[in-house]
């Protein structure tokens, strides 16, 4: 099953490279959608490559080439998909992480220290909410009419699902 793993890690490395290049060359309007499309396209390419290449890829030890092609491919695609999910976790932490932003604000302040009120002044609640609202408008979870925001059907079902999860796992109001 080594071939699938090798292709999965190589495919993910190519994804990372192209993702950085794309974001460097031109900031996409819908960043996450671009990432999803890219990972999907490379996943298709990975599947084709898996079917066209020999089980040892020309360099793998023969002892690791005895698995059936379907399990090898399935395993490779699972690893590839989960590497992307793991990367998304990191990406969202960098892009939207509230705590990360606070640390950067503290570090960039003249004395490299801040009080909570100063953090709030540099990054107000209205700024936090406006960014989230814009993102949710983009992905169709909410609509905005005359300055009033409402859930779409997609937003309503997501809100109901998360509210149930919060309640079931006793997570509090959160946010």
């Amino acid at each position, binding site marked *: 099953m080594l071939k699938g793993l090798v292709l999965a890690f190589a495919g993910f490395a190519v994804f990372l490279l192209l993702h950085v290049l794309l974001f460097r060359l031109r900031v996409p309007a819908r960043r996450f959608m671009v990432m999803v499309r890219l990972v999907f396209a490379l996943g298709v390419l990975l599947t084709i490559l898996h079917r066209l290449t020999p089980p040892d890829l020309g360099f793998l030890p023969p002892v690791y080439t005895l*698995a059936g092609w379907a399990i090898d491919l399935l395993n490779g695609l699972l690893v590839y998909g989960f590497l992307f999910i793991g990367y998304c976790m990191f990406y969202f932490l960098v*892009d939207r992480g509230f705590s990360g932003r606070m640390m*950067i604000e503290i570090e960039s302040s003249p004395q490299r220290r801040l009080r909570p009120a100063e953090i709030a002044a540099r990054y107000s609640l209205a700024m936090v909410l406006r960014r989230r609202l814009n993102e949710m408008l983009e992905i169709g979870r909410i609509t905005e009419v005359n300055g009033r925001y409402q859930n779409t059907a997609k937003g309503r079902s997501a809100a109901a699902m998360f509210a149930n999860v919060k309640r079931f796992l006793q*997570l509090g109001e*959160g946010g």
Partner: protein
Amino acid sequence: MRGLVAGALAFAVFFLVQAGGFHWVKISRRALTLVGLWVAGLPVYVWLYVWLPEDRAVWPVALAAPSDSITVLSGGLLYFFLFMGYAQFFYMAESSVGVRTMIELASEPERGLTLEELTQRYRYDWMLDRRLRRMIHAGYLIEEDGWYRTTHRGRLTAAVMAWCKQLLRLGPGG
């Protein structure tokens, strides 16, 4: 398949224990509990792997793999990745401002809410305090007489994050 099935089953056991635990007991140190339960599930994965039959005995040839180190590793990776994916979902439910916003909007399905009305529903000082306390606990920040400053670890993390934001041209974010 043996490794993947063992990994998926071990995660199912973890998930049931975790969901039951969080439902019946009010847990304050959630991250530690999640990781602790996942680690406790590793012997379950090993036990399931040993208990499951050889692939060739039950699966067609295309889905059969020898029970070697790669098969064990693949199952372990699946168990790890499923946990990581679930952790992402868990923290989205627990901490996401966007999710909280949708829940607030759901309480006013007919009229909706303005940005001003939404801000009034949040306790920003509580939101900030919660995150600051977490970062102190995790060793990223130090609090001195009401001032917050980064530790060595916090400085390094802030630098890495700022570099990644710059590399991907993500803007200040947060």
